[in-house]
């Protein structure tokens, strides 16, 4: 179990912001931090991993205290068992793929983990390549594999897939799920993509101006449990058109635009740019705001 109780004054683009949050994450959970940019998500992850010092509060992981302003405890990032996948991947340009992984080995650690992770992340053929020659998805796999070398208990993923195209995202989401289960990790993800969050996470915390404003399981969080549906997708409203007595709503789901019929009452609640859920019970599609 990870318990965070943090206070920190941050200088953000919009001026000073006071981050003040309490979070509890169960061991083995896949958790997502959700919220607008500047809400304090990355700062929270940086404080957990020891890269940013909170002004006050505590960080407890299992039985251990990683940070306590009262007891004057502040473990260095080197002492915290955290695998961190950065948004810009942070691969070492002077080393090839294999060397990037080997660098992360701990003293006297069994080197077999390198082969295992190269195989798992499908990097065996790329192992001699330098990072600059890799595609975004390949870099992402290296960064993920490298973060796992030291066998962390906590894996931190800071918007790891935001720079990738949809196909690659979906493939890597599968990877993340597999990794999370196989290595029995507690995984903390920052993401804006609702489909991704619902697919990956057990629970979701929404941050706003440095505090948790909403939390719940992924399906509860986006209100997806209220409809019993045969299929459902989330997307963004692109256009609302009136046609006779009905409205036709164009929704972007992934890379596809889908047109959904809606009655005027439902359509009134929607505007262009809204995140919506499109679901169907056998015949009639339902469209609702989430």
């Amino acid at each position, binding site marked *: 179990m990870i318990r965070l109780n943090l206070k920190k004054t941050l200088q953000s683009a919009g001026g000073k912001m006071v981050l003040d949050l309490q979070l509890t994450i169960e061991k083995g959970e896949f958790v997502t931090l959700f919220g607008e940019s500047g809400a304090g998500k990355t700062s929270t992850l940086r404080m957990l991993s020891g*890269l940013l010092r909170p002004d006050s509060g505590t960080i407890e992981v299992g039985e251990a205290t990683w940070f306590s302003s009262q007891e004057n405890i502040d473990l260095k*990032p*080197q002492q915290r068992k955290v695998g*961190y996948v950065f948004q810009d991947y*942070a691969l*070492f340009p002077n080393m090839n793929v294999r060397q990037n992984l080997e660098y992360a080995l701990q003293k006297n650690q069994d080197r077999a983990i390198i082969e295992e992770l190269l195989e798992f992340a499908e990097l065996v053929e790329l192992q001699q390549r330098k990072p600059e020659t890799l595609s975004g998805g390949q870099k992402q796999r290296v960064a993920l594999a*490298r973060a796992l*070398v030291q066998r962390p208990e906590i894996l931190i993923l800071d918007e790891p897939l935001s720079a990738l195209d949809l196909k690659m995202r979906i493939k890597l989401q599968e990877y993340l799920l597999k990794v999370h289960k196989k290595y029995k990790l507690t995984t903390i993800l920052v993401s804006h993509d609702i489909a991704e969050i619902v697919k990956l996470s057990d629970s979701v915390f929404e941050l706003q101006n440095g505090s948790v404003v909403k939390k719940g399981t992924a399906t509860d969080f986006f209100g997806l449990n209220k409809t019993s549906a045969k299929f459902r997708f989330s997307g963004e409203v692109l256009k609302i058109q009136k046609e006779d007595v009905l409205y036709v709503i164009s929704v972007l789901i992934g890379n596809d635009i889908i047109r959904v019929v809606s009655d005027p009452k439902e359509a009134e609640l929607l505007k262009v740019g809204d995140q919506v859920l499109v679901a169907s019970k056998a015949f009639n599609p339902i469209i609702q705001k989430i």
Partner: protein
Amino acid sequence: MDWQPLVLTFKLAVVTTAILFVVSIPIANWLSSTKSKIRPVLETLVSMPLVLPPTVLGFYMLVAFSPENAFGNWLNEYLGIKLIFSFGGLVVASVIYSLPFMVQPIQAGLSSLPSTLKEASYTMGKSKMTTLLKILLPNIKPSLLTGIVLSFAHTVGEFGVVLMIGGNMPGKTKVASIAIYDEVEALNYAAANSYSLILFSVTFVILLLVYLTNGGYFKRFAQ
């Protein structure tokens, strides 16, 4: 022609550059990562030799190192080091005089690296030292090369500081730039020209090599 001044010049440049390389890396690393309030002061001190007349620097070192004064006397009495009119003194003066030429490129190189490289290494349990040696320095090789070459070339070309604290002692402190001055004073233009031409060619070739290397010309040529 007497080759001794040239040999002495390059010996001084090599020793100075080697010492500067070792000294400047920690300074540059500290300057590039600190948020300390005394950073601007230290940056100013490091950069002073860029604008200060070398004679000013030389004058104060002459005063400080003189056995007449407490510090110079202490060096002489307890450590047996005499820095005035000696090769050792030239090295100390050159190191201070060329400091910005080594520190600034390395500092700029380190600042240009994304901070996530360092942070990634820390989260893998690696110490600051390991991170510096295995991650940061190998990724700023062009900056290191620039620092080395600029310090070397700058030391080859120094005159004022050397004259102030080294004087003009053949085989000990008479470097090529002093020798040129000496020959001109003696109206011996041919000898002055030989020294000058050699310094001119050597510094041109060294700087050209840096620009070719950092511009990637050799890599393209090799392919």
